[in-house]
């Protein structure tokens, strides 16, 4: 049996009102050292974590949104975003920052990490995991 497990980090909270979102990202970065098959899910208010143009100067906390763009360097390249959650909040994929990774299996071609999926597809992604960690 393979040692590699499928880990899904589920993000359902907005970025700055609570510490959940930042803690999730910290755990993802720590977990990346263990070379597992990691995916991130963004649904409900979690989709707000990925909006482009975040600026936290006035609220005195760290803007961690640029960190998502570093995930590709840690081979975290699957960021699933739920379409219905975007639509319920008046957002489109264009409101999200661009996050890419370089595909080592395809001559390091730059590819998008964000994959917008339906709620039904998200349910299937959740059911396909060995471990689900919620934040």
């Amino acid at each position, binding site marked *: 049996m393979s040692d590699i497990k499928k880990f899904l980090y589920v993000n359902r909270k907005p970025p700055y009102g609570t510490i959940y979102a930042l803690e999730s990202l910290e755990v993802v970065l720590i977990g990346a050292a263990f070379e597992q098959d990691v995916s991130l899910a963004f649904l409900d208010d979690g989709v707000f974590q990925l909006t482009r143009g975040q600026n936290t100067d006035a609220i005195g906390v760290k803007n961690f949104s640029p960190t998502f763009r570093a995930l590709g360097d840690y081979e975290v390249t699957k960021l699933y975003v739920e379409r219905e959650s975007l639509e319920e909040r008046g957002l489109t994929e264009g409101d999200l920052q661009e996050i890419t990774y370089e595909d080592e299996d395809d001559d390091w071609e730059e590819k998008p990490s964000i994959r917008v999926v339906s*709620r039904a597809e998200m*349910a*299937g992604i959740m*059911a396909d995991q060995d*471990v*689900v960690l919620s934040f």
Partner: protein
Amino acid sequence: MSTLHTVNKSPFGNATLSSCLGHCLPGDAVLLIEDAVYGALEGSAMADQVKARMGEVALYVLDGDLKARGIDAGKLISGAKCVGYDGFVDLVTEHDRTQSWL
């Protein structure tokens, strides 16, 4: 392959149970714990949404949390099953993964 979903927030102030019900699959189980036990009340504004999934998703309620809140098991949606901590452990072992909806 199936999932045990746990929910711990009241559905009347938080959409977590609603989101869980929208993502669980046939054969899964939903266990309501802590303030989420209110989500199993018959006749509530949430009841229809819960009952709509109960044909294919099993609903469990943690007995200690129910008793702590003074909710009689007779007030619950028909088919909701009360379990203790031992039953909670059994549910964890009977499913392939546990997803806690925070």
